[in-house]
């Protein structure tokens, strides 16, 4: 998994390597400085030798400058490497999502893909930066400081040997114990979010049923639970506060070392085995050793936390698009005929839970076909098999007499234009949205398509006409207008087959009729599949297909079906009752 993620480092490999290299240099100098400082005290200050003080002081300033240089470089490289890594990772994920089929998209919810692309990546980025800086720095610092301390005085450094394991084990134990509790806290936070979100969304229900008190109780309950869990988790951490300065465990370790060093140090100094300068440098090393231990434990926790994010990212990177390009793709769709041959389909590829059962259907090029049926009768599923939005579980779908699986994906999708039920316009001008259908469409072509879809009239009524800016999701046009824009966009593809999946539901019946009339007169050669709720939308079609429970319940013209199809008649009557 880690390896998979690391593949995204690419051009930032250099920075990723240079960062720890610079860090190492920085550490080496930083460890040397206390050593030189002890020299300054012993040979300079204690002896009152000004020239030594100046000389060594100069060396310290010089070393500090070099260390500063490496510090700046390492900080720079680490920032470069981690932000670059995050960029590539995000890009790789996004690109893979672009390859996803609908089935892949359905598997991950939209919001989950978004969180993975944002929050999870940020977590990984922080962890990566930590690893190439701190995770290199601290063990090195620990090792060097131990070596230096030992080189100052071997016996004295034994003190560290006592305290390091105590501190290390203590830190790990606390982390291990607190972690599960914190997970619980986060889960409860989700509950809290859920209560607030439901409340915000349903505020009209809350207020009209006068249930504010009930909501308050519900919230207070979760809030109380968070309070208790959080307090419990943080009490566990009380031995190792969030800040070094407030960690009793760290304080104990530092203070223990100080007292021990003072005691033995004094004896050694008096015994002539140690100088006062060396004593102060030992104390500096104490701080460095314990600090790095503390940081290591922090990095450790951080890595544990980011592991979940890494897994979630890897899931996206690993997801294989389940619709693939054929090896020798057919690049031209000869005509707009469609044939379903014994087609079965299940979203879960589970043959016991079929959404479409044994469909056989033949549509001639240029025909207009109406499809009607209740919610859940798999109308949408049926048409989505034509441009290979999903692949059949069993059987074959032919377009222009050729199996759809043999076509180049782009060819088949451009030749079969679908106006989805859940229509989306993107932020940008109307023109820009139209050019999704055909990048090189002229203004004239756009206008024509919009006229066909009965959209031209209202677009011209906008002050900015075709340059009107559409907000995200098309929220500044009405439902009916949005649907007509989407139809126009689909027409610009100049397809062989046009599929309207309940695409005129918000358009008034008169305009709906006008659109159908325009289709019949202006684009007679295009095969048109119209899924609709309203009988009036499909009444004039060459063939009407009635779907029920994933099967074709009846095929025929309006009159034929009225005659011999019970469902069709029922729907017709229920709608006519309101319209007489």
């Amino acid at each position: 998994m880690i390896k998979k993620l690391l593949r995204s480092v690419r051009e930032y490999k250099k920075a990723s390597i240079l960062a720890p290299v610079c860090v190492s240099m920085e550490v080496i100098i930083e460890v040397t400085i206390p050593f030189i400082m002890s020299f300054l005290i012993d040979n300079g200050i204690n002896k009152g030798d000004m020239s030594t003080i100046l000389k060594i002081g100069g060396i310290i300033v010089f070393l500090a400058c070099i260390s500063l240089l490496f510090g700046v470089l390492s900080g720079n490289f680490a920032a470069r490497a981690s932000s670059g890594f995050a960029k590539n990772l995000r890009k790789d994920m996004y690109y893979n999502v672009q390859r996803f089929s609908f089935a892949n998209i359905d598997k991950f919810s939209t919001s989950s893909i978004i969180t993975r692309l944002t929050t999870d990546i940020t977590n990984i980025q922080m962890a990566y930066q930590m690893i190439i800086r701190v995770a290199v720095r601290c063990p090195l610092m620990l090792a060097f400081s131990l070596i230096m301390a030992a080189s100052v005085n071997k016996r004295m450094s034994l003190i560290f040997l006592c305290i390091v394991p105590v501190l290390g084990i203590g830190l790990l134990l606390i982390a291990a114990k607190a972690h599960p509790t914190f997970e619980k806290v986060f889960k409860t936070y989700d509950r809290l979010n859920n209560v607030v979100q439901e409340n915000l969304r349903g505020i009209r229900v809350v207020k009209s049923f006068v249930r504010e008190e009930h909501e308050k109780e519900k919230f207070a309950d979760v809030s109380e639970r968070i309070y208790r869990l959080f307090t419990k988790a943080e009490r566990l951490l009380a031995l190792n506060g969030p800040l070094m300065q407030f960690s009793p465990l760290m304080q104990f370790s530092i203070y223990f070392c100080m007292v021990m060093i003072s005691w033995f140090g004094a004896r050694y100094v008096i015994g002539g085995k140690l100088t006062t300068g060396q004593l102060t440098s030992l104390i500096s090393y104490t701080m460095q050793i314990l600090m790095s231990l503390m940081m290591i434990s922090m990095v450790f926790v951080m890595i544990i936390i980011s592991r979940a994010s890494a897994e979630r990212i890897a899931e996206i990177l690993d997801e294989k698009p389940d619709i693939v390009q054929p090896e020798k793709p057919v690049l031209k769709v000869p005509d707009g005929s469609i044939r379903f041959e014994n087609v079965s389909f299940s979203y879960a590829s589970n043959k016991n839970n079929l959404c479409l059962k044994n469909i056989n259907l033949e549509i001639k090029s240029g025909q207009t076909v109406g499809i009607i049926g209740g919610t859940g009768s798999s109308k949408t599923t049926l048409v989505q098999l034509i441009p290979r939005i999903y692949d059949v579980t069993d059987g074959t779908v032919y377009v222009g007499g050729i199996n759809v699986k043999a076509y180049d994906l782009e060819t088949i999708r451009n030749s079969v234009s679908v106006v989805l039920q859940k229509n989306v316009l993107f932020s940008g001008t109307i023109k820009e949205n139209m050019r999704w259908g055909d990048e090189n469409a002229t203004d004239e072509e756009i206008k024509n398509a919009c006229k066909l879809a009965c959209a031209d009239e209202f677009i011209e009524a906008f002050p900015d006409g075709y340059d009107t800016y559409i907000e995200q999701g098309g929220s500044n046009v009405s439902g009916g207008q949005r649907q007509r824009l989407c139809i126009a966009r689909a027409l610009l593809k100049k397809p062989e087959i046009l599929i309207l999946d309940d695409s005129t539901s918000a358009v008034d019946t008169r305009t709906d009729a006008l659109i159908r009339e325009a289709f019949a007169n202006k684009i007679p050669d295009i095969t048109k599949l119209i899924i609709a709720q309203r009988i009036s939308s499909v009444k004039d079609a060459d063939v009407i297909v009635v779907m029920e429970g994933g099967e074709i319940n009846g095929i025929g013209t309006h009159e034929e079906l009225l005659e011999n199809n019970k469902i069709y008649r029922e729907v017709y009557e229920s709608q006519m009752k309101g319209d007489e």
Partner: protein
Amino acid sequence: MPRLGGGKPKNMGMTVKRLLSYVFKGYGFNFLLVLLCIIISAVAGVNGSMFLRALVDDYITPMLKSGSSDFTPLFHALVTLALIYLSGIIATYLYNVLMVGVAQGVLKKIRDEMFNHMQTLPIRYFDTHAHGDVMSYYTNDADTLRQMISQSIPQTFSSLITVIAVFFAMLKTNVILTALIVVFVFCMMIISKKVGGMSAKYFIHQQKSLGKLNGYIEEMINGQKVVKVFCHEEQSKEGFDVLNGELCENMYQAHKFANILMPIMGNLAHVQYALVAIAGGVLALNGISGITLGSIVSFLTLSRSFTMPISQISQQINSIVMALAGAERIFTLLDEKPERDEGYVSIVNAKYDGDRLVECEEHTGIWAWKHPHGDGTLTYSEVRGRVEFDDVDFGYNKNKIVLHGVSLVAEPGKKIAFVGATGAGKTTITNLINRFYYIADGKIRYDGININKIKKADLRRSQGMVLQDTNLFTGTVKENILYGKPGASDEEVIAAAKLANAHGFITRLPDGYDTMLTANGSELSQGQRQLISIARAAISDPPVMILDEATSSIDTRTEAIVQKGMDSLMHGRTVFVIAHRLSTVKNSDIIMVLEGGRIIERGSHKQLVEERGKYYQLYTGAFEPE
């Protein structure tokens, strides 16, 4: 989407004061204890670094000079030191334990207050605030607040104490060297402010480009299926690459400056160390200001304890400013004005005692208005459900009136329908009846009582509502139905479900009435959810019902099923219906056609069709109802 870079808080002083009042109100004693613990802990720490000077000057050097090997005084001193340290450690531990309680307690209080206050806010507030934004008050802003209370404030306080203690210790040792250090530290702070400022600047850029990228991803992923159908993957990638690159650059800059701050501070401290050594040496050798060689050593140690807490403070300042911005946002929510409720007429259960209506405890199916008068007497009148609008004007803001001179009478038990294009004001009218919004002019009377005089809760309780968005809550089916009438018996729940035509499918659910529902509702179809929301309205048995596009998102065949539930629900009540399917509206007693906030036609279906006006056009499909 995360909110863009936290702006600076506007009124820091007030915010801090208000925040502290939360801390002191409930946790004053504990908080004082916390401060005391911090002082003990900090003083113990300072004491330790001062001891090093004593170790060399008072013990080692004299012993070296005298050549004595009596370690008892040192031993005693170390035991004292160990005890001081121990008290420091205990104080730290106590601080941690106490602080958790204080911080979490304050947070819980603020959280609860926020939510409770939110429940009192008018609908207008919810209309004008993005839900994601409000939710982040409870999470992001509350979290920065927690960090500030439990970490930033204590650390700053502790650092401050350390700095003061060390400063006096340094001053005592040598004035000139202290001055030197103060100047140097001052320079360090300027540099850190510069670098920190750069970092902050880019962090804001980073947040902005992150917001942009998030927006792009959200839009594209939401429309992913459209992207695929149009083979628009390449363009979608291109757009992404631009924003992604921009984000990467800003992120790089922000982190670069943040990363180099520590090495700069650390190495400047080294430089300072060397400078102090040299300056001290010069002073000592020339006999200026009476410094001894020994005291230079201790001064050097002190100087390090001086710079450390200062750089810690400078690091904390940023997060404190951010947290205060969060606190300010929370306080704006708390300061939002709640709904007014000047009503005094209430609704009670009642029964007839002969001819007289008397109040009673039990549910009788009869509701009465309880009308207190100035002279202390009470009168009762039965709730019948007659609603009257008298020349009502309304606007969401004062300059834009959306309803003009609306007058209508809904007699008890009648069905009133509103039709018209989006934005004609249909939903607005129904939202005035239950006082979600306040009218600008005119009067609305409910059984002859001005609705301003009716207690809001009672007013709303007497009106059931079924909306297009079902808004069920996480919980069992039964809990959701009970939402309409808390404390109702199982029989009542089942009766309501039967009335709504929902009993049948509920019993077929895996756990029947105890089946858990979640907010996103994957367990049920849209139609089934709507049936439950109808049952929820039915159980409260209100005299007035409002159905706002209740069947719009259901297909016609399913609607036929839901309709049965609706019909039995509507029976015997005053009903207001909004629908764009005319089949739903046709059999209403009166149909009101709205256009531009005015009622332009009214009458029964038959009358309106004969009139050949707007309704006739609408009915024959000549203009878009939605």
